[in-house]
């Protein structure tokens, strides 16, 4: 291989590595493992939920993409604040909801990935079941889609 071709290949490889760093991919399985450790529980029905996640990823409701779902059965007093500790840098919590009356909790985190947002929704029901949903949304596309839907109605 000629030195110039080798240099070009190296340049392409370096650019690809930089691009990958600029827009971090979400490793959902790794995230599920971390959240499971944080909440001291294990994910439930991984195959069934995996199938639901697969079909969810095929559809793009309101321009949302890359949807993943996981369900956990927690034991005792769990606190979704632990989820924040399981996330990589770059995630920002935008919504916190704690209903101590009904023992319900919810957290919404976002992380920017170029023009799109990775969104993580964690919910804990009174029966101890926790749901973790991640998806990608583009605010611009979302607004456009909602405007279109509104004008049709």
């Amino acid at each position: 291989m000629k030195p110039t071709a080798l240099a070009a290949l190296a340049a392409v490889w370096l650019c690809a590595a930089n691009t990958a760093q600029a827009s971090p991919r979400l490793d959902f399985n790794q995230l599920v493992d971390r959240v499971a450790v944080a909440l001291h529980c294990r994910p439930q029905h991984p195959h069934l939920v995996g199938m639901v996640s697969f079909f969810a990823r095929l559809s793009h409701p309101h321009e949302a993409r890359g949807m993943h779902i996981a369900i956990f059965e927690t034991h005792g007093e769990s606190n979704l604040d632990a989820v924040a500790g399981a996330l990589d840098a770059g995630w920002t919590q935008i919504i916190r909801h704690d209903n101590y009356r009904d023992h319900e909790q919810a957290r919404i985190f976002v992380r920017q990935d170029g023009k799109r947002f990775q969104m993580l929704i964690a919910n804990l029901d009174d029966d101890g079941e926790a749901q973790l949903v991640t998806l990608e949304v583009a605010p611009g596309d979302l607004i456009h889609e909602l405007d279109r839907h509104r004008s049709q109605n």
Partner: protein
Amino acid sequence: MRKRWGVLFTGLLLAAPLVAQQPRLDMHLSGLAARASEVNEVSLDGAALKLGMAFLNNDSDMDRVDRELLSKLKGIYVLNYEFDHAPPELNDTTLAPIRQQLQARGWSRIVTSRSSSRRGDETDEVYVYTDAAGQIQGLAVISREPRELSVVNIVGTIKPEELTQLSGHLGIPKVDVKPKGDEQ
């Protein structure tokens, strides 16, 4: 060399109060969350505001929010506590950490609204933060009911009357913005 470090250190010390005088409030109220039956926090800043805009536009309950208004904002922060029983500590002492910040230079109260109902007294206060040029760069709302407390901090260029467009959405309580002279 030591003299240079001394000058730098003094400069940082002098700059610290200026940095503290920002339209962004520290809304941490220790102890109150433990007494609340429901806690809601909204923290939208930077690019996440675009996401908030999308949610606002999906709200069929409201007229279209002026996107220009939202584009001028840098952050929307809301803290809301609901209580099953009116906590005795829900008074001015509880709010002292926030009030101290609102007493700093730049902040001024423009609205105080008091009303009474069967549930008890309700108080809404609206503060604005203006920069040296007189431009409003921030807004704060303290809304207090016997069993509910909401603190809102909006950072960015916003007119008090524009608050009505946002009130009732994104966790911001409905606030009747009247001039200070209309106090009850």
